[in-house]
């Protein structure tokens, strides 16, 4: 690991100023960043430790019915917050299906959004990677591509976003609160819908999100409407072992059902693209339908209509269709009272 300066700001103003310099990186839970630094994949010259900043560790109900989640809230604390889990059960299930208990105790809400891809060629500094070194080429292409993208990829990058948390969040219209440039002694703030927060690779896979240098995620908001899906919401995730593994494919499915008819649907997929993938066209097909097998299968077909393999991974397209089908069917049955013992597992005995 390369040597770096360590600074611990006391306020957001100080943090943003300290991180504005080139080569600076924010440190929060450290669960991804330190791993990347040990591997030489990222080599910040300065770490700005925001893990002690006051005011960012609360979960607050908003007057309009929404919820505000500070960027420093730990993944485990959010998942186990009873009021939050009751209103947003698919988010809690996604969180509990990710990583391990130790990592969930350290990893933060803000950091989860900024997780880097787990593409093996990105992690291997001896491999060419356009994301790591713009213009270097992509050695993943033509290599071991089983787990790579089937949606939104380009010749320059076929990596996927590894987050579970972001999948139900994007389905539920989460908004990211960002602090940035200081103007007249005050920190600038902007809101960005999570759906537009991450970039698809295009020709610039090194640009992963809308964050500008020095900008800091301070919170995440879910709107009041998102709680309207609490009775019919699931997150399902196929992985290569039942616990402590990233998604091969995953999906969040949330429905509003009145008198046996779907009045609103939300669908997003994980593990298929470089961003959490919202399937809006598929959602629209369910409105006014009964949640029967035929409607659910049609919807799953539509969700993957634009998918194409980026290598030896055509199986992921069919797998994703099936997991969307299963998640919608289970969501229609109803959210379980408690997150199942094996969160998000399609093989769990509990529905």
């Amino acid at each position, binding site marked *: 690991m390369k040597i770096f300066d360590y600074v611990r700001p006391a306020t957001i103003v100080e943090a943003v100023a300290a991180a504005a310099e080139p080569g600076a990186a924010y440190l929060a839970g*450290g669960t991804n960043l330190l*791993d990347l630094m040990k591997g030489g994949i990222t080599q910040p010259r300065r770490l700005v430790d925001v893990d002690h900043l006051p005011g960012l560790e609360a979960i607050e109900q908003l007057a309009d019915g929404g919820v505000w989640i500070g960027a420093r809230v730990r993944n485990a604390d959010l998942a*186990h917050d009873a009021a939050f889990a009751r209103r947003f059960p698919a988010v809690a299930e996604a969180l509990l299906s990710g990583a*391990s208990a130790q990592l969930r105790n*350290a990893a933060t809400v803000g950091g989860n959004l900024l997780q880097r891809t787990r593409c093996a060629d990105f992690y291997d500094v001896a491999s060419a990677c356009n994301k790591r070194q713009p213009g270097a080429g992509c050695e993943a292409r033509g290599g071991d591509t089983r787990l790579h993208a089937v949606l939104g990829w380009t010749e320059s990058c076929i990596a996927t976003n590894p987050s579970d948390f972001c999948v139900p969040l994007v389905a539920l219209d989460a908004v990211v609160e960002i602090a940035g440039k200081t103007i007249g002694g005050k920190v600038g703030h902007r809101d960005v819908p999570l759906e537009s927060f991450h970039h698809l690779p295009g020709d610039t896979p090194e640009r992963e999100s809308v964050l500008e240098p020095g900008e800091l995620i301070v919170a995440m908001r879910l709107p009041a409407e998102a709680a309207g899906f609490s009775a019919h919401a699931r997150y399902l995730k196929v992985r290569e072992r039942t616990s402590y593994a990233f998604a091969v494919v995953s999906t969040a499915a949330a429905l509003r059902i009145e008198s046996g008819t779907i009045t609103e649907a939300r669908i997003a997929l994980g593990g298929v693209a470089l961003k959490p993938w919202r399937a809006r066209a598929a959602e629209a097909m369910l409105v006014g339908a009964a949640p029967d097998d035929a409607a659910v299968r049609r919807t799953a077909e539509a969700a993957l209509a634009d998918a194409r393999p980026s290598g030896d991974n055509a199986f992921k397209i069919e797998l994703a269709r099936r997991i969307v089908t299963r998640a919608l069917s289970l969501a229609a049955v109803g959210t379980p009272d408690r997150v199942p013992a094996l969160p998000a597992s399609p093989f769990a005995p509990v529905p």
Partner: protein
Amino acid sequence: MSLSISLTVNGVARDIPVDDPRVTLLDLLRERLDLTGTKKGCDRGQCGACTVLVDGRRINSCLALALSCDGAHVHTIEGVAQGDVLHPVQAAFIAHDALQCGFCTPGQIMSAIGLLREGQAGDDPERVREGMSGTLCRCGAYAGITDAVLDAQQALGETGREQAA
């Protein structure tokens, strides 16, 4: 660079100089404080051998910068027994033969203590297995580990769990 941090390690408050910002909590414990019970397996957050409690919560100490832990209470395997009296989780691991080579055992025990404090698993073996999945045992003592955790939980009872560490 001369920086220093305050840590309470197994109940003892200490001021510790940190001469290099790259030092992780794991390396600090092992190399600077001679607490070598906490093991370094993968050093990348994948194996869980380095699990310790920080402010009562289990984390991977290999992925925590020592400097960022300033002010924290750290519990390691060295601090769980009371003199010659084993912690109930330690005793249960022995009773259930929940180890073979023993390298992962400190991490397993600290993870189990953290799990019991979290109080999410109840007496459901499936939830215990899921909750313990962050610490790998390549000898494959998982069945014994699950039984040991369930037994220790019973032995500790409700109040004991909160004070497990």
